């Protein structure tokens, strides 16, 4: 028999309120998934940079990657909320196609009587489209939230319905081109308020290098703001004794991110500047990070997806919340539909089809759980870029579409497998 006198009282409790600073290795391990995902994206980019003989990182191609993926990313933001809430939305591709068609009909397809002509104004039409998208999302959300019809079924039906509706309102034809203002959404770049600066003038045998200074300045402002926020947050946590990230890691992480952003900012500035749609996207990403990380609305969505019953018994209006989530998804699908249409400069009956798969895949590659309650905006965005860079790189390399599909499928599986493996090991 062992009789041992252990320290008296009930120990191992919350006596030490202060959070201990982790070792660099510990902090890396704790955030393994986030760093891993970022690293995967960088590796994939380097891989294609090499195998496309340097085409991938050409300013024109980087600009293309952003334009090609903007609508996926916009929808991935909404899809993240939907999936975290424990649902799925299969209709987003069709809804975006439908809204694109609606935009085309409003602006160029339908002949309005003079008193209604204002409807064809690109800004009015754009606003109408967003509202229509939100209403579509809300309608589906209503059935899901209040009538408890599984989201899989409601949105599967929605997918078919809006696929049909796009065909119907376009009468099976492509409609375009759009007014110039509308095209700016996808084809426009931040105008040069200052600059441009000519670094290397065009001369015999030398490529001219003109820098769109305004864009670069915006990128620099963005980076400075980001670092400012990071330092402010850290000092606040430090003051209360809640900081756990080692200082070295904090500096390294921010420097790396800043360097990457500046690098891409510079690349874009040396082509035509920041695309308008990138600015829209960046603002939306910032907004959604804020919603998910800092707002009660976001917190409640995680609780809802994590344990619906416990959330309801904590006073969360689970039905209304679900309803809002789908309405937001609808509005974002509408925006994506317009970006897509503006990019093609016409609405086609096939527009948007199958996009939902890329969107959903992005969110899962980004680490969201199919059971709900887990997922991050940053992950979804990186996930979307991973998909986007692969699409782009493989196209440049001339990989056949059949192979492309298979490879993307394998990457999705691998990402989710890696996640589960990590979780089980812990």
């Amino acid at each position, binding site marked *: 028999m062992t009789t041992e006198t252990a320290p008296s009282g009930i*120990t*191992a*409790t919350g006596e030490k309120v202060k959070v201990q600073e982790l070792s660099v290795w510990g902090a890396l*391990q704790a955030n393994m998934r986030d760093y891993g995902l970022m690293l995967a994206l960088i590796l994939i980019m380097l891989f294609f940079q090499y195998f496309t003989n340097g085409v991938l990182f050409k300013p024109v191609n980087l600009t293309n990657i952003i334009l090609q993926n903007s609508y996926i990313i916009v929808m991935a933001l909404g899809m993240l909320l939907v999936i975290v809430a424990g649902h799925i939305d299969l209709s987003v591709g069709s809804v975006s196609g439908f809204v694109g068609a609606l935009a085309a009909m409003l602006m160029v397809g339908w002949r309005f009587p003079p008193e209604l002509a204002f409807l064809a104004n690109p800004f009015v039409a754009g606003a109408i489209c967003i509202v229509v998208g939100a209403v579509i999302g809300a309608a589906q959300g209503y059935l899901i939230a209040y009538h408890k019809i599984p989201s899989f079924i409601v949105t599967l039906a929605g997918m078919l319905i809006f696929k049909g509706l796009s065909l119907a309102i376009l009468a099976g034809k492509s409609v375009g081109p759009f007014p110039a203002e509308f095209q700016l959404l996808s084809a426009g770049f931040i105008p040069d308020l200052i600059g441009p600066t000519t670094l290397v003038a065009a001369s015999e045998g030398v490529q001219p290098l003109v820098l769109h200074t305004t864009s670069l300045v915006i990128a620099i402002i963005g980076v400075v703001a980001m670092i400012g926020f990071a330092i402010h947050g850290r000092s606040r946590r430090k003051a209360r004794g809640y900081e756990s990230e080692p200082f070295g890691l904090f500096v390294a992480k921010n420097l790396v991110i800043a360097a990457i952003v500046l690098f891409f900012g510079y690349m874009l500035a040396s082509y035509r500047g920041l695309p308008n749609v990138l600015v829209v996207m960046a603002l939306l990403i910032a907004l959604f990070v804020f919603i998910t990380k800092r707002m009660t609305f976001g917190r409640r969505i*995680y609780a809802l997806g994590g344990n619906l019953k*416990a959330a309801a*018994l904590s*006073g969360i*209006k689970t039905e209304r919340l679900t309803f809002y989530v789908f309405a937001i998804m609808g509005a974002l699908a509408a925006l994506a539909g317009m970006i897509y249409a503006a990019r093609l400069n016409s609405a086609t009956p096939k527009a948007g089809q199958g996009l939902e798969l890329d969107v959903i895949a992005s969110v899962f590659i980004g680490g969201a759980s199919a059971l709900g309650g887990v997922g991050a905006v940053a992950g979804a965005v990186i996930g979307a870029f991973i998909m986007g860079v692969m699409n782009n790189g493989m196209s440049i390399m001339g990989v056949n579409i059949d192979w492309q599909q298979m490879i993307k499928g394998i990457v999705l599986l691998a990402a989710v497998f890696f996640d589960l493996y990590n979780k089980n090991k*812990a």
Partner: protein
Amino acid sequence: MSETILEMRGITKTFPGVKALQDVNLDVREAEIHAIVGENGAGKSTLMKVLSGVYPAGSYDGQIVYKGQEQHFKSIRDSEHVGIVIIHQELALVPLLSIAENIFLGNEQAKAGIVDWDETRDGARKLLSMVGLKEDPDTLVTNIGVGKQQLVEIAKALSKEVKLLILDEPTASLSEKDSAALLDLLVEFRRQGITSILISHKLNEISKVADRITVIRDGRTIETMNKEQISEDRIITSMVGRSLDDRYPGRTPQIGEVVFEVKNWSVYHPQHRDRQVIKNIDINIRKGEVVGIAGLMGSGRTEFAMSLFGKSYGQKISGEVFLHGKKVDTSSVGKAVSHGIAYATEDRKTYGLNLIDHIKHNTTLANLAGVSKFGVIDDMAEMDVANDYRKRTNIRSSSVYQVTGNLSGGNQQKVVLSKWLFANPEVLILDEPTRGIDVGAKYEIYTIINQLAAQGKAILVISSEMPELLGITDRLYVMNEGRMVGEMPTAEASQEKIMRAIVRAEGKAS
């Protein structure tokens, strides 16, 4: 003295950030009932998961010697293969399958993949009679109470030719009668040569049936007591490292006017429209008063409380709720909470916690307004709150960032409690607040209840442990089959009196 059947030597198991077990030793003799006791989070469940292969060999350090041979279980199947069967703290039955199907789940009575239903039923019937359960094997598990479900689990264990049966808090949610039946069964098993390891926080049960007791504290073995050394006080001292003179903290009640009143409350079953579950109940609670509801399992206490709390149970609910004499609408949880009514559930996994999220987020979930402005959460304030409540309710975890699903059962219960304490309600309904909680922590929870009462809150405690109700309440209601059948000041109450009220009501009903 009989031989040693199992020896665990120097078991050490770490989770990221937590050393759950450190050099733990356990030896169990053939055909004994060996109890393991310890505070919440001491490592009891973890030790049993190591033993049964839930945590496979290699994920821990130390040796397991079973029947003289060192074992390296890679999975539960391996340990079952040699006759070690574990029944977990949370039951693992499939609700929509029949009793017979559950008993033979994963071990189907089948030839060439085709289930032999006659064999299955006969086998199940035989096993059910061994555990003394008189139920049709075709009954769905969801239609029988937890006590019976527990027996089905044991029948399932018997079907695997169990030699060493591990029960992790089997009686936590059983009525006294069911608990007694289960313990009798263990005694009967002992006679037949089956060894049992029993984990429980109910020290009276343990002192009654255990042959030896091993105490674990902070992930270490403290001692193993023999039959003649066993006494409740001795166990407590060993468990918490100091003696506990009183089980219930004293207080001088200061009771004011009626704060909360329910009149003529009736509720019907959520699926069966005609079955009235709650029948015309009237209750009231005064300022600073702790009121208890006594009753047997299934008397409708939880259903009553949940229907009050935002109609979270049942349908066709009628009746009135008054707060300070004014009628209030509690028809949604949000409304109930905004009137200052809170309900801390007995079922932490299903209704209490977001198990995939950490302590901090769970603590503030019912009162996000308390840590936010204009819908924006102040993360520093939230951190303060979470740390504060973690300390007050003595939650044992690596930090407030520990995922609640990884906490020990008792510590999960404390998180549920923290959540509702932070919501700062005026009327607090606590449903089995100390289920699965160790003696030391119980004392702390009673202290918190007393503090709340001293602040003038109205508190309603539902508990199946009568000594607890008698120890902490000012007034008692007795509930039976959906009716209030008795009311008495606690000072005049006793277990006999409560039972008499129940029996009298049953006599009237039949």
